[in-house]
């Protein structure tokens, strides 16, 4: 009823380098491939004796984690240091957030100190978008926001799949568990849709977005379907990804019991046998072994869980490099390796 200017919705052919990395919903296949290529080069640096290149010398990267995390925080920190950026960690504990300063004022303060890039992990969905909107000279990378998105995790998942499977077009990925509260699943859905993979979601009805359950979803890509019965969902899957179940969900009324959950949705040997032979087993971590995944599978031959961690460092190096130096150099491959 009111008229106004429509915002410019960025086309899915956004050209690199990006200033921010917030989610994968506007990445196309070519851009993802370029990032994965760059990350492969970065993996080469990781395998060296002297794990350091001067690419980001003189750049200041703030790693702001307002929520507990080990793997993602260390991964970003290591990625920045290997590229010779000055990396400063800010954690929720002891920071201005705990003294009652608003996120906006904290961010403006950090911008005034001439930070080049902020990596943010926040329990609040949209916090990285909020920073990106309010800061005019700092890049923002989303390291996981609430129950919304986790684009660097999705990219490391795609890298892991490409290394083992190659082209993902037409491949089947089953994602199991608490999809509703999973930022990993949301970003994976967009990344996998971009590379042409089909996604089947399987989990308790309280943990699947209602619109998908009702069959009224227009906002998820068409390549996403729901199959509550894991025995069916897993059939002929190329990739089996279990999500972390938070144990307090049972007390919150979303699950009858952990026993019921494991009986219906744990990735077991018997279930994995129904997937394609040699199917990849993935988990964003940290795992509850014996709940969403059996120990034998977590440490079995198909498990890529540790490789995911390694690829995570490479992906974050690629993104930091692209965001901070991409335009000034010959492109991601221009790193002196």
């Amino acid at each position, binding site marked *: 009823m*009111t008229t106004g200017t429509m915002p410019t919705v960025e086309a899915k052919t956004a050209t690199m380098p990006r200033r921010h990395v917030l989610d994968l919903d506007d990445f196309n296949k070519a851009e993802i491939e370029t990032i994965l290529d760059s990350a492969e080069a970065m993996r080469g640096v990781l395998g060296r004796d002297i794990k350091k290149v001067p690419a980001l010398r003189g750049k200041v990267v703030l790693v702001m984690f307002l929520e507990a995390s080990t793997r993602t925080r260390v991964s970003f920190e290591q990625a920045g240091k290997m590229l010779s950026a000055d990396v400063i960690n800010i954690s929720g504990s002891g920071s201005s957030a705990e003294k009652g300063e608003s996120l906006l004022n904290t961010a403006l303060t950090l911008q005034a100190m001439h930070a080049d890039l902020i990596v943010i992990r*926040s329990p609040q*969905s*949209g916090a990285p978008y*909020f920073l990106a909107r309010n800061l005019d000279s700092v890049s923002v990378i989303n390291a996981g926001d609430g129950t919304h998105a986790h684009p660097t995790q999705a990219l490391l998942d795609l890298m892991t799949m490409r290394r083992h499977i190659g082209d993902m077009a037409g491949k089947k990925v089953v994602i199991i568990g608490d999809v509703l509260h999973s930022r990993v699943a949301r970003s994976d859905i967009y990344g996998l849709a971009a590379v042409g993979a089909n996604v089947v979601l399987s989990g308790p009805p309280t943990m699947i977005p209602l619109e998908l359950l009702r069959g009224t979803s227009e906002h998820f*890509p068409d390549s996403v379907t729901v199959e509550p019965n894991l025995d069916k969902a897993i059939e002929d899957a190329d990739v089996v990804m279990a999500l972390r179940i938070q144990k307090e969900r049972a007390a919150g009324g979303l699950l009858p019991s952990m026993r019921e959950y494991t009986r219906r949705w744990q990735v077991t040997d018997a279930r994995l046998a129904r997937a394609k032979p040699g199917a990849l087993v993935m988990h964003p971590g940290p795992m509850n072994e014996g709940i969403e995944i059996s120990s034998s599978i977590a440490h079995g031959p198909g498990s890529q869980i540790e490789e995911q961690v390694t690829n995570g460092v490479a992906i974050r190096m690629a993104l930091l490099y692209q965001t901070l130096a991409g335009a000034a150099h010959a492109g991601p491959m221009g790193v002196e390796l």
Partner: protein
Amino acid sequence: MSETLLIKSARLIDPVAGTDTVGDLLVLDGKIAKASAAPSDARVIDGTGLVLTPGFIDLHTHLREPGQEDKESIKSGTAAGARGGFTTLCCMPNTVPAIDNSTVVDFIKQQALEAGPIRVLAFGAVSRGREGKELTDMEELARAGVVGFTDDGSPVATGHLMQSALLYAGQLGLPIMDHCEDYSIVKGLGINEGWVSDRLGLAGYPSAAEESIVARDIALCELTGGHFHVAHLSTAGSADLVRQAKAKGLRVTAEVTPHHLTLSEEWVLGTHGHVEPDAVVTTAAYETRAKVSPPLRSLSDQAALIEALRDGTIDAIATDHAPHTYGDKATPFDEAPNGISVLDTAFGMLMGLVHAGEIDLPTLVQRLTAGPVSVLGERFIELATLAEGTPADLVLLAPDEEWQVDPKAFASKGRNTPLDGDTLRGRVKLTIAGGEIAYDGLDGLNA
């Protein structure tokens, strides 16, 4: 100071008389008078092309005073009301302290008198301290002048308390207005449960959480014979429930806000209008200025609300004007308080419905004047008519004038509107309350 004004050749819409004519109207000694009795020194205003109606009555305004004067004061809130064409504002009791005793009512009446000519009527709290436990002293509050009771901001906490409140207030002839939100389902979420909340990874407030309390309260209304008024009704299902209750003859009334009639959940994406579900989420998203409770709903809810407004299921348009400071809203979405600053823009938003052919102007005016009176009671009927001898509470409107929303120019302290920068068509030109000019937007053209 009461003025002597002769408004000539305006379209006069009188919702009580049911008339819609072109003519002249005189304001004399604070009352509406026969134009032929105009003294020669009356200020003459050319109303050609303009619409003159009774001043609007807002059943639902958060004036924030006492206690949160950084967000709004009675002075700034009544100024915003005047700017929006409202000559009567019913203020909500979720102040600090709450309006739960007659001393606070007296304070508000005094502040309103000092602020200017806009009439301020208070709603009292249902429960002491709005804590949902003990009823307030309802009879004492009624004697102090409250026009109804509500724990707005929160629902009446339990069915038992609602039952008692309907009985007590019913005996006093006053309504219980309920903010219908089932806290056992969700609490305080400012975004609809739907595709937008899904896209943004935010927990959403489903329609069912409103409708379950609307259904509870209708059942209790039938049980007690009291008067249940639905605050800011926002879903198609709630409209159906009210329609059925009215068909049964129950004393159930309802209001709807300008934003629920004209905006939808997509506004949380920062898009200022419709957007396809597969669009990219931009940095404009997580628009806290579109965070409101109940939340902006789906397009089909919006259509059902317009239909319910048209067919009389919904009696009144009420703003739920909820001013907040810049800092309150300059946060990640979850942290921001709910609410939109509506008074300054209400008429322009609503005229969009008229221009789109959704509702005719006389019906819109009825829902802003006589409609609210049907909720408040017949003793206020004089506020909704242009009859001679009634109080000169009037608004002069330019239905086709376009203007750009600039929150910095608001009379309200609350600049929290998602309409920032949009163009609206329909503008208030002059507001007269008790014969005094409360807002003059004629730009000297008629001086």
